[in-house]
């Protein structure tokens, strides 16, 4: 396949054709001075290339340790959630948890205890999704089932309005009951 016409030799062949036939012995190449010269140059190029392939230039001895320091210092993937966009903004799960706990605290008789935030399997950089397990303490007598609905609404709203991520799953766990 003649790939390029930029390097056509006076005899009509192009350099790439000579390259493809470099180890064959054909009539034209043996008699044509142009092809012969190009073939010689290509043989030298091939030899020099083989040298380059064998060349054992090594990276600096401390490259691995520098990379690994940065890797270890980097916040673990499980500790951050992407914020929607080009992949260059993210928020720590700890910060997300703080926001969601605060939202739940807004409901009378409810006090947020623990909040576990993980990135959902279906989460992407363009559309980040989280799953949350929120444990709450409730004050006996003060809290009806409507309160739980209210907590859900507020937590969902906070995920969207305060953070900017989608909440796919919210498990509410009543971990304590306080005297009313």
């Amino acid at each position, binding site marked *: 396949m003649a790939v390029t016409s930029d*390097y056509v030799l006076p005899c009509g062949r192009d350099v790439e054709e000579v390259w493809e036939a470099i180890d064959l012995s054909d009539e034209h190449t043996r008699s044509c001075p142009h092809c012969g010269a190009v073939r010689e*140059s290509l043989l*030298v190029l091939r030899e020099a290339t083989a040298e380059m*392939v064998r*060349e054992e230039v090594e990276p600096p001895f401390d490259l691995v340790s520098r990379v690994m320091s940065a*890797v270890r210092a980097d916040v673990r993937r499980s500790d951050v959630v992407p914020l929607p966009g080009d992949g260059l903004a993210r928020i720590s799960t700890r910060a997300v948890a703080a926001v969601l706990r605060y939202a739940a605290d807004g409901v009378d008789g409810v006090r947020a205890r623990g909040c576990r935030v993980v990135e959902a399997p279906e989460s*992407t950089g363009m559309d980040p999704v989280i799953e949350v397990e929120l444990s709450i303490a409730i004050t006996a007598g003060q809290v009806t089932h409507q309160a739980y609905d209210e907590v859900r609404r507020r937590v969902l709203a906070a995920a969207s309005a305060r953070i900017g991520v989608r909440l796919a799953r919210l498990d509410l766990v009543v971990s304590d009951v306080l005297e009313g």
Partner: protein
Amino acid sequence: MSVAEAAALDDATLVARSRDGDVRAYEQLVRRYQGPMYRLALRIVGSTGDAEDAVQDVFLTAWRRLGQLNDDAAFIGWLYRTTTNQCLNVLRKRKPHADTELDEHESPAPRTRPDRAVEVSAQLDALQAALRGLTPEQRACWVLREVHGRSYDEIAEAIGTTQQSVRGRLARARAQLAEVMAPWR
């Protein structure tokens, strides 16, 4: 997992474990591929300082992006493409008279094995000089194909173009290099 055990593990396993946050597994990956990536970078950007920066950057980015990788076996191809991309960006940003910047970035001469230190031939020197005469894309195509044996498909993806265009650039690169190497016939 001891270092010895980890060293025997295949790439896909190391990638999978790294994805789960296994830092020691990732270190093995870095050790395994720092050589090829550094050599690739060095041949494209031509300066040891820039090559080091590029490779460090790629390995840190790779760690962060592991979560987005669908196929563990695709990691190495991804490394090649990202390193190439990074190097092309470096070249595109270089100002025309970049000599002073190169000096500031320069590390001590690249390490080769001591017994080979004196053997770098004039021919190889000429090839390295000839490569600098190619455009960044031509150089990347040629190095990826002729030195690192990557497929046309992979090269096309790395450069962000078609296989047809890769073949064209390769042909032009080869013709130009051959012309420069001619005096060594």
